[in-house]
């Protein structure tokens, strides 16, 4: 039977004339072309990203090293407190001639003749003028070191720092560069003695603004940014989420809410400098709030971040399946219970991601801060958001305006720090998202 069956099976021959051109080749060619365009686009993007990172990192990594000179400083009573008044007059310790201590130690270390003024001046120029405050703080903190000899690590002056890092071309004629041949000789001499060496630059994280690159850091600016982020988070998250929930769940759909929706979408695209002008006009000129204070910066960035958070939150609320709402309502949950027990927790990953992206955006924002006076030379840590402060990106902007070689590397160094903050924030967003999604 099977034989007969198989022998009787006839396969119809494909008629030659019926072969249609349905464009298979063209379709595949189009697909290949499209793939190529996509890959080209991605490669271009990756290339420029790599270029950016390479430029920033190659310029900036040296900012995390600092040349230091460790000298045995003799805190002679004759210099620090010549009249022996420190018990009665606290000012004596603050106004003492500390650079003299540094000079003496350096002269001794290099074996110079203290009477040759120009030579000694050249030698002391190798050490940062910030040594005065360093020594003063040491003495004020512990007056018992007066009369003792203590090894102190001092910062090298920025040009010596650059020269030691090999960033200054020593073949250039001596008169055309800031580091003199004599200083280079001493530098090598000190380096051989193990007194002068490169170490990790903690200063860039802790110092405030300074006209001396070796004493400049982003610490103060980072605190200002931190205050602002705190204000932005505390204000924009509740306001943004409340506004989104109302608009998405409760508001009637009419012309007014349509208008509000259009405006929110437009506000997200308004140039940030316009928010700066608004902050200047409303918070500083009208409300009389302090200039260059983190609180005003925080308010301005809040206004700027709100549309982003509202849009992200509304999208997250919309994405919650209607069946969950129906289930809760069908059980007799009120609208409020439905939203807070079921919809909001499910929308939480989206809301958090939107918020952190908004915060990261605000962290990197410079333009509005320029207008409210946060381009400030702030040396001391602001004790509260009401005090004058500056922000990380503004600090970068200010350093970028400086000409010295040491500021060039610090600009890139600060950019690296800012980028690390942003990457950490975005990682946080991803982790939070994962965590909440797993729980639900």
């Amino acid at each position, binding site marked *: 039977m099977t034989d007969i069956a198989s022998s009787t099976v006839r396969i119809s021959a494909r008629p030659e004339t019926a072969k249609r051109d349905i464009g298979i080749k063209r379709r595949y060619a189009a697909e290949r072309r499209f793939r190529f365009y996509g890959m080209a686009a991605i490669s271009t993007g990756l290339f420029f990203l790599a270029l950016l990172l390479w430029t920033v990192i190659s310029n900036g990594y040296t900012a995390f090293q600092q040349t230091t000179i460790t000298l045995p400083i003799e805190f002679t009573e004759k210099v620090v407190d010549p009249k022996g008044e420190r018990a009665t007059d606290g000012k004596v310790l603050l106004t003492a001639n500390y650079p003299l201590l540094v000079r003496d130690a350096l002269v001794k270390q290099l074996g110079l003749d203290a009477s040759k003024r120009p030579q000694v001046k050249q030698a002391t120029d190798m050490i940062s003028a910030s040594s005065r405050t360093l020594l003063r703080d040491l003495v004020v903190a512990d007056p018992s070191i007066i009369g003792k000899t203590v090894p102190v690590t001092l910062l090298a002056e920025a040009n010596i720092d650059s020269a030691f890092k090999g960033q200054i071309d020593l073949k250039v004629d001596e008169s055309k560069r800031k580091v003199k041949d004599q200083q280079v000789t001493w530098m090598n001499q000190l380096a051989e003695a193990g007194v002068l060496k490169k170490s990790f630059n903690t200063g860039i994280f802790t110092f405030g603004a300074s006209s001396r690159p070796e004493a400049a850091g982003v610490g103060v600016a980072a605190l200002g940014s931190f205050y602002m982020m705190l204000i932005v988070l505390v204000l924009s998250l509740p306001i943004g989420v409340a506004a989104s929930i109302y608009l998405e769940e409760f508001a009637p759909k009419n012309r007014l809410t349509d208008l509000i929706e259009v405006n929110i979408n437009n506000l997200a695209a308004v140039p940030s400098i316009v928010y700066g002008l608004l902050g200047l006009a409303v918070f500083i000129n009208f409300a009389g709030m302090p200039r260059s204070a983190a609180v005003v910066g925080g308010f301005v960035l809040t206004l700027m971040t709100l549309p982003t958070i509202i849009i992200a939150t509304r999208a997250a609320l919309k994405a919650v399946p209607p*069946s*969950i709402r129906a*289930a809760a309502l069908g*059980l*007799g*949950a009120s609208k409020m219970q439905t939203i807070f027990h079921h919809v909001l927790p499910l929308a939480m990953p989206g809301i958090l991601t939107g918020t952190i992206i908004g915060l990261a955006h605000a962290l990197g924002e410079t333009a509005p801060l320029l207008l409210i006076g946060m381009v400030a030379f702030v040396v001391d840590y602001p004790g509260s958001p009401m005090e004058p402060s500056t922000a990380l990106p503004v600090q970068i902007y200010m350093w970028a305006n400086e000409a010295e070689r040491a500021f060039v590397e610090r600009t890139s160094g600060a950019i690296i720090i800012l980028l690390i903050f942003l990457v950490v924030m975005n990682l946080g967003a991803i982790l939070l998202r994962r965590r909440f999604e797993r729980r*639900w």
Partner: protein
Amino acid sequence: MNIMSEAAVEKALDQKMNTVPYKMIGKDVSVYYGEKRALFDVNLNIRENTVTALIGPSGCGKSTFLRTLNRMNDTIENCRVTGKITLDTDDIYDPTIDVVELRARVGMVFQKPNPFPKSIYDNVSYGPRIHGLARTKADFDEIVETSLQKAGLWNEVKDRLQEPGTGLSGGQQQRLCIARAVAVSPEVILMDEPCSALDPIATAKVEELIHELRTNFTIVIVTHSMQQAARVSQRTAMFHLGNLVEENDTDKMFTNPDDQRTQDYIMGRFG
């Protein structure tokens, strides 16, 4: 809640359906979605401790009618309901009636199983919790256990009550949704094509369950399956183009319907 003794139920069921009292009365119910009218003056009464099946071709208004019974249509923009629907003696569209309270009395099970993305325990205990039906942990435990038992799910899940309800199979999820509805101790349970997303075995289980639930609850079920209507219901109502065509005892409906359209639909001539 008005629970009849089992003997009384059996007796009532043995009698002719016509003698069973009405639980819900719908009089001249019309529903409009904006300008479009979806239901035309429907007069349909739901009998107590009875399974009433609503059948009819797609778009005939049977789901719309079902959703008027616990005012789920309120959540739809531009939806307007006219006419009068009573639950016992209360007009459910009366402004003094709270929709939250109504839905606690008239529960609902949806087409697609929609457990909350929470544990099985939390799914069942959610209703009692928001309505304050229990205070202590022991009370909640008891409600969860009895509800799951009524839904025929207890033996399958009793060892994993803290696992997410979304991890169950489709049929189990739907029974979990039924348990969730039962936990609030409603008087009426509305089911909107509860088996359309389930396989035949899970469907059989849910149908069996509906049969058992009838002793304690009044059930209204929308179904596309004629066989299902015949299997689970005592009364059947046929809708067509927003009108109620016929409402009758299920036996009569499937053997000797009064209306030609019902006959045609049951025979599969349209729909």
